[in-house]
């Protein structure tokens, strides 16, 4: 399984429809301070089901929806879609290509989609847990958190090893 494409619209600083194509291997993201690089990483975690406000730097659902600027009005909805290549059958689904989507409204409602049909968060979490793309896994290292791996309490580090089991 690998990431083929990410479509972002209305998530944090991405006010217009923006998409990134990914090949296999290594994709780098560069740019000035405050341009939106970490927002891209957060969009990936968000669409995969991330809920923790600490990880998303947002206290409530509304905080991740484009709040507007001097020149552009605020948006009412944030949407992220991720297209995964599943030709190796990593995700236990019969699709060669899997599109996962998430929408959030100012009301606080969140909707989750799997190949265009609506699902519950619970369904997504079960799917990703089986496929080792869990939310709390070591595979996401946030900005400034390199040190965290070393400062975890011993029992929390055990949790990281258990995840790899």
């Amino acid at each position: 399984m690998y990431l083929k494409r990410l479509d972002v619209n209305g998530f944090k600083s991405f006010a217009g429809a923006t998409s990134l194509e990914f090949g296999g291997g290594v994709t780098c993201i560069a740019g000035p301070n405050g341009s939106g690089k970490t927002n891209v990483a957060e969009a990936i975690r968000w669409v995969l089901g991330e809920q923790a406000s600490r990880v998303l730097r947002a206290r409530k659902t509304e905080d991740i929806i484009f709040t507007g600027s001097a020149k552009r009005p605020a948006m009412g909805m944030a949407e992220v879609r991720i297209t995964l290549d599943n030709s190796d059958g990593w995700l236990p689904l019969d699709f060669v290509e899997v599109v996962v989507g998430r929408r959030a409204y100012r009301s606080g409602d969140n909707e989750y989609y799997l190949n265009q049909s609506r699902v519950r968060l619970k369904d997504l979490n079960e799917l990703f847990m089986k496929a080792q793309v869990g939310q709390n896994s070591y595979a996401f290292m946030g900005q400034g958190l390199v040190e965290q791996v070393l400062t975890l309490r011993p029992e929390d580090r055990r949790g990281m090893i258990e995840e790899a089991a």
Partner: protein
Amino acid sequence: VKERFSTTFRKVNASFKTYFQTFFGGGEAELLLTRTDEETLPGVDIIAQPPRKKVRTINMLSGGERSLTAMALLFALLDTNPSPICVLDEVDAALDEANVDRFTTALEKLSERTQFVIITHNRRTLEMADTIYGVSMGEDSTSTVLSLRMADIAAK
């Protein structure tokens, strides 16, 4: 379950040692199970000793040595149980040029099984990427993304 944990623990420990020695050109690194009573599960401690130094606890390492040790542990976990996707946000910020090279060499090898998305300011890390995206903030405070080639970066 205990059985699986101890097999994984041994594998991660062996891989952690190898990555540490590759990054530091020698030295010793080890994960230790903390002793506990029967009831609770043991925790995991880290011993890291750069080559030719006596230091053994991680809080006596320098900023860059700590980042490198953390990456050795992360890569050991990825090596033991590859995750299809890995997202790293400026993990190379504290590293000097020689250590960035060691980091990217290890990354290249792991990228055969894991797809990496790496946010960085570091020119040497950008040079090894297959695809580069430049993100910029417009006058209207919205982010736009542009696919770049290394030639574009160098010109900036």
